[in-house]
């Protein structure tokens, strides 16, 4: 199984490295396989995930020792519907403890895969949760074990989780693509490069978070997406990078931004680019505005999230992520894009039980580093709260709250223009973001943290207890 996968990956890696090939007539971008549902019971999705070491060709001509879910990087996609009960039989065959965090899911605290519930090496567990109504959207899963999340994700442990509604407001004629963005840095032998934390390179990783020059889409280098002139495609994009923030653009066209972390907006928004911080998701409608046979690209534009002390010299460079190849076939008539997508009801802010302040400084939340035996904040179930997240330092920190989705009220006092469901929000340097969150259903301890994985692992995380 692993060997077969390796050969397959080698095959496309070598193909993608070859110089100018004729434009493909079908995608070279491969979607990860969807996890097979072992249950015949309606509205039950029962799957098996195994995390284990593997040897895969992540780079052309190199074999890398990775950690993989079911033998592949990225892991297979968990594809479910609103209302489904999900059972994941998980086995940890890694030489170290791990967890699976179902990023963005609203579930019992002991199913959240937080560092409070590590799965020891060799152990099995079942993750069981029910997907609520109204939760259709693009999510992802990854380890969230104490101090080792960044390492395990860099070694290859990440995958997509897609929740679908019974019906979609988008026409069925719109094809859907999944693009999981990740980056990595490799040594000459093809192994992921983790510098000594006390070396200058290690200290810069600790400041910036670990970025790498190699940028993958679904584990592939510069894959091609084929589009027909006139065609509209729905791209679900996940930022699975530890620290790299993408500013996504298809030069030459405006993107129709239709969804974020928790699914579709109320209506599409035409934008030149979308900033996607760590673990944020975006849903875009990409329109085939080019001529048959022409080429465009999905690029990431420069975005200065960095502290001036450690900003990389090449921060102002753009990078290609994937090619957009226009088929040579005749143009098609564009499908009509609905003006209304789905309601995103505003969380009622007239009865706010508490306002909390979360202060980000470098590596710290409210002046402290993570202590799993401490509860930093407490909230009552059945109440609504406003959280003010103040970033006092000169670099961006993306804030993630486990278990409970939220809406953004304002940024630096400026009301948020588009209402959207979020579980992660980037708080740019020296900015203040206020969010409103409703706590329901699940008592327990939840993490809130900076989603730059190096910062999270170094303790830029706190514990919220709901009861």
């Amino acid at each position, binding site marked *: 199984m692993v060997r077969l996968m390796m050969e397959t990956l080698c095959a496309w890696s070598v193909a993608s490295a070859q110089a100018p090939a004729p434009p493909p007539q079908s995608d070279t971008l491969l979607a990860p396989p969807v996890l097979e549902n072992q249950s015949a019971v309606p509205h039950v999705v029962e799957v098996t995930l195994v995390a284990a070491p593997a040897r895969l060709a992540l780079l052309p001509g190199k074999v890398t020792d990775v950690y993989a879910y079911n033998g592949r990087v990225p892991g297979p996609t968990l594809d479910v519907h609103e209302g489904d009960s999900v059972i994941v039989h998980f086995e940890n065959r890694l030489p170290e403890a791990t967890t699976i965090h179902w990023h963005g899911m609203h579930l019992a605290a002991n199913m959240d895969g937080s560092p409070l519930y590590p799965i020891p090496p060799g152990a099995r567990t079942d993750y069981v949760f029910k997907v609520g109504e109204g939760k259709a959207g693009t999510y992802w899963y990854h380890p969230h074990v104490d101090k080792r999340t960044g390492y395990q994700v860099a070694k290859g442990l990440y995958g997509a989780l897609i929740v679908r509604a019974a019906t979609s407001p988008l026409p069925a004629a719109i094809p859907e693509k999944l693009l999981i963005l990740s980056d990595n840095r490799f040594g000459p032998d093809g192994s992921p490069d983790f510098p000594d934390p*006390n070396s*200058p390179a290690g*200290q*810069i990783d*600790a*400041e910036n978070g670990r970025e790498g020059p190699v940028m993958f889409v679904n584990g592939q280098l510069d894959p091609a997406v084929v589009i027909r002139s006139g065609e509209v495609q729905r791209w679900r994009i996940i930022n699975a990078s530890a620290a790299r923030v993408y500013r996504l653009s298809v030069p030459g066209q405006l993107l129709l931004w239709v969804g974020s972390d928790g699914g579709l907006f109320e209506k599409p928004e035409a934008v030149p680019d979308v900033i996607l911080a760590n673990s944020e998701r975006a849903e875009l409608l990409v329109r085939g505005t080019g001529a048959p046979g022409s080429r465009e690209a999905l690029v990431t534009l420069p975005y200065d999230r960095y*502290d*001036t*002390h*450690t900003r990389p010299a090449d921060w102002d460079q753009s990078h290609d992520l994937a090619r957009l190849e226009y088929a040579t076939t005749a143009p098609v008539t564009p499908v009509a894009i609905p003006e209304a997508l789905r309601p995103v009801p505003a969380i009622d802010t007239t009865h706010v039980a508490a306002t909390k302040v979360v*202060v980000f*400084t*470098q*590596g*710290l939340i409210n*002046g*402290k*580093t993570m202590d799993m035996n401490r509860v930093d904040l407490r909230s009552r179930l059945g109440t609504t709260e406003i959280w003010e997240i*103040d970033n*006092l*330092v*000169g670099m961006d920190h993306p804030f993630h709250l486990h278990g409970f989705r939220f809406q953004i009220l304002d940024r630096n006092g400026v009301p948020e223009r588009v209402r959207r469901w979020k579980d992660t929000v980037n708080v740019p*340097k*020296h900015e*203040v973001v206020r969010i409103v969150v409703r706590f329901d259903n699940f008592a327990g301890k939840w993490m809130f943290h900076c989603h730059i994985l190096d910062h999270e692992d170094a303790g830029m995380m706190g514990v919220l207890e709901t009861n």
Partner: protein
Amino acid sequence: MTRSWSRAGLGAAAIAGIFAAAGFVGGPAAAGSENVALAAKQDPVQRGRFLVITHDCGGCHGGVDPASKGWLAGVTDSGQIFKIGACNYVEPDLKPCFVTRPRNLTPDNTTGLGRYSERQIFNALRYGLKMEDTPDVTITSMTPGQGNFPLHPHYLAPPMPWTAWRHMPDGDLWAIAAYLHRALKPVVNKVADSEGPPDFWASVYTPDQIGIYPAPAFPTANERPPK
């Protein structure tokens, strides 16, 4: 790089500003300085005010006296900006060259010191540690990695003279923190971040370059007991 940066990098406008401020404090304020000092003995905030005035915090951080515009509110004028490194005003393109901007010391929550504790302000004055990069904890060691002293300290950008002011008694540093934190009105003034090298100045602030704390016991080889 040696400590010559603090002189080489001083802009003409900044030097003029410092001299002007010093002259003002030493002149018209002199008549009342004994009263200020007396009041300070009783009240940490008044003591802090006295120390802030006598140590010319305003010379870089803004204002010429506590009644003046922009008092300790950080950079409001390009003359308050320093260039630190090999560059100078004759040869501005020499590298490295880092821009240092005196920060807003008023207790505004997001642009000033409002979200920091007095202990963090104390740690900045005693150890030179940037408040936003250093835990809000008591530090009991001067050795990186020990006694809550960060393993990879992030230091305040030069020319902040914490290396001299750290020798003030604890009570004086706490008094400065109290004055800044409790007795100033918050001013919203967002000052851009200072620049610096990736080691956050650690290679500049070594004992052979800044001396040791506490200072060596008297008399050293350079000193003698008074006759």
